[in-house]
């Protein structure tokens, strides 16, 4: 596959397609670093700990019904668990278009921040629960 220029990432929050209101995306895969250094060598030794994955999406804020704020506020307020899914392109999931998804929660939400004349945007971090972010190719 050719090198990818991001143009049409597929972004779904709780099954709702928000691709037309998201301007940047991060899929962060992370595991805690557990120090297991011992007297067996000259340097540090580490082991993989618990997963701590997250998605970071930059939403273009929209306060209309069934848009960004109307969706994110209830997810934060009702403390729901919901699915976030991201694909590099809007094409179907496949070997060259993996789908990254996780059950997430919303701990922090900043509905409004910005200066005069700016596009109202809000960066939202979705921490993944339990199994972390999974990668599907079929």
């Amino acid at each position: 596959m050719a090198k990818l220029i991001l143009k049409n990432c597929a972004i779904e929050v709780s099954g709702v397609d928000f691709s037309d209101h998201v301007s940047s995306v991060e899929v962060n895969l992370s595991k805690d670093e557990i120090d297991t250094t011992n007297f067996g060598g000259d340097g540090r030794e580490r082991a993989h700990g618990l997963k701590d994955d997250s998605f970071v999406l930059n939403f273009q804020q929209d306060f209309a019904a069934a848009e960004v704020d109307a969706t994110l506020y209830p997810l934060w307020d009702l403390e729901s668990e919901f699915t976030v899914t991201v694909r590099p392109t809007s094409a179907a999931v496949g070997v060259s278009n993996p789908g990254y998804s996780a059950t997430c929660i919303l701990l922090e939400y900043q509905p409004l921040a910005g200066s005069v004349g700016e596009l109202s945007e809000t960066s939202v971090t979705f921490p993944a629960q339990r199994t972390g972010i999974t990668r599907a190719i079929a």
Partner: protein
Amino acid sequence: MNLTEEQKQRIAEVREANRETRSEKTYVVIGPHRVNGKSVGETILLSLTPSLESALLTAGHIALPSAAQEQPKAPVKEKAAPAAKERKVTASG
């Protein structure tokens, strides 16, 4: 820590009780955004927890079929009301 099978089962029961149960229902997509690939007006079968169902209903992405059927009736009533007022004004004037 070594747990007995009974303790493990008890822990599993408590976890299950604390977890929100999902119920499968049919909804109608009413929002401008596609929901699980379905567009506005299409029906969709979703398995949702009570809080997630509330979040999606509140947001205006989906509606229960009964509520969705009622929605088109509301604008018709709104249109009928001003017409009646206009007639009254004409009659009195």
